[in-house]
């Protein structure tokens, strides 16, 4: 149990530190802060042009979605990247608890995603017409944190697929941008065709963003508990799927000797 906890905690932190580029401000600032900032501004102005909703709609949607920079890209690079750095074989040769091993890699990305999201909210407040009710801020913080965790569960699946695909970005890029389309980030689900909205409802972020919008608008936390519970359940379901996939790919790769095949 203690070993599993060590693999979860220390292993997770070390794997995050192994994203060497992300430790450098010259990389982190443009990618993890600059990109989200300009994404929020772009969609807020697009919203003004399209007359769909107000700035607050686009700020909340995009500020929550940008956590996928860490949740999706970070997980993809952490797990899928093991193959590129030739550390996958030694890693899977260890007797370490697999659940602790992979979930530990998710923890730093949840924290990172939350930081990116918080920066998005502050930028929206400073630069656009977004002024959330102060009374809703504690609940909003909790919902954003839980949504980041849920998104990272989905990122684990992307990372698992990265073990199979030649380039992990072939999966993570469309995943990130599809979220902009189907998760209610920029378009209300009611404006999408039924099948696209159904995909959005099965993905993380969708319910979290809806809850965050209501909280920013002054709704009490008790009124969004159902949405938050759904968001958490969806995140857990994706994390479970990722675990099954990772174990399956591990077994298959051992059987077919394709673990390091690029």
């Amino acid at each position: 149990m203690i070993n599993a906890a060590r693999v979860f905690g220390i292993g997770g932190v070390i794997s995050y530190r192994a994203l060497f580029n992300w430790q450098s401000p010259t990389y982190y600032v443009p990618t993890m802060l600059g990109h989200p900032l300009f994404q929020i501004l772009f969609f807020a102005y697009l919203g003004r042009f399209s007359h769909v909703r107000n700035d607050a709609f686009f700020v909340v949607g995009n500020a929550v979605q940008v956590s996928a920079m860490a949740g999706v890209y970070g997980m993809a690079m952490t797990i899928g990247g093991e193959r590129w750095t030739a550390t996958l074989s030694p890693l899977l040769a260890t007797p370490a608890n697999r659940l602790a091993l992979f979930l530990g890699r998710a923890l730093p990305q949840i924290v990172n995603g939350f930081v990116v999201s918080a920066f998005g909210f502050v930028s929206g407040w400073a630069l656009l017409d977004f002024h959330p009710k102060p009374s809703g801020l504690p609940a909003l913080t909790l919902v954003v944190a839980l949504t980041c965790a849920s998104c990272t569960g989905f990122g684990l699946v992307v990372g698992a697929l990265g073990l199979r695909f030649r380039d992990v970005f072939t999966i993570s890029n469309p995943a990130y941008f599809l979220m902009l389309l189907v998760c209610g980030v920029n378009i209300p689900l009611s404006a999408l065709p039924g099948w696209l909205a159904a995909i959005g409802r099965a993905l993380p972020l969708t319910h979290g963003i809806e809850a965050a919008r209501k909280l920013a608008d002054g709704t009490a936390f008790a009124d969004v508990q159902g949405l938050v519970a759904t968001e958490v359940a969806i995140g857990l379901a994706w994390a479970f799927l990722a675990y099954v996939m990772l174990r399956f790919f591990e077994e298959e790769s051992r059987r077919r000797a394709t673990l390091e095949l690029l």
Partner: protein
Amino acid sequence: MIRILRLTWVGWLLNMKSLTRSGLFIFTSVIEPLIFATLSYYLFKAGHRPGTLLYASLSAGLMGIWTSTLFGSGGVISWQRWQGTLEPTVASPPPLMLVLFPLTLATASIGLYSLTATLLWGRFVFGIPLHLAHPATFALSVPLMIVNLGALGLVIGGGFILYRNANALSNMLEFPVWLVTGALVPLSLLPGWVHPLSWILSPTWGFRAVRAAAIGGDAWPALGMCVVLGVAYAFLASYLVGLFEFRARVRATLSLT
């Protein structure tokens, strides 16, 4: 002159083949613009702006051209560093700029996949009629814009020679340039201080020319600005590439990743 043209042609062809073999590059050039085209359709429909649907389709394709130029040109030096071909490239007899230009031109040309994909997507999936207002001008505007973006790509690639995390800047510059050049959102909605910035960015004029040729309007002033800026970029790129190449040689940092 013939040697330069031959070098440009052979370099462009080689890099087009190389980039077309890259699943990730093609996937990004096609899938991402299609997602943005779809997003714009539904957004404009929800906002009851049906007249803007061809505009959305066209704009998403133009945004894709900028994306492929940015990532291709921004990564041009890094890729050569990773592949170990940067030193032989720099050491080869032709000026470095003439070797790099076909590469950045090829990355801009790959953007044609984006434009084709979004126009066909709009036509066949959303039933948006594709009637070009000035077909001949459109046929001239698109390649002119591509060459122009290739020249801008050279400035970007040259500027990134000394910057180790060049791909991070590429990640950041996608949305702001879409915004500042009026790729999807009209410039009139942006604050006044942004306008002078948009005037010195050639995508502003390239997008404007292509859009005027397709939807209606006078494309020629914008095409003229494209030519002027293209020449200015060529001079700037020549200076930057020469300067950074010299510095990298002096500091022996050419191959450092």
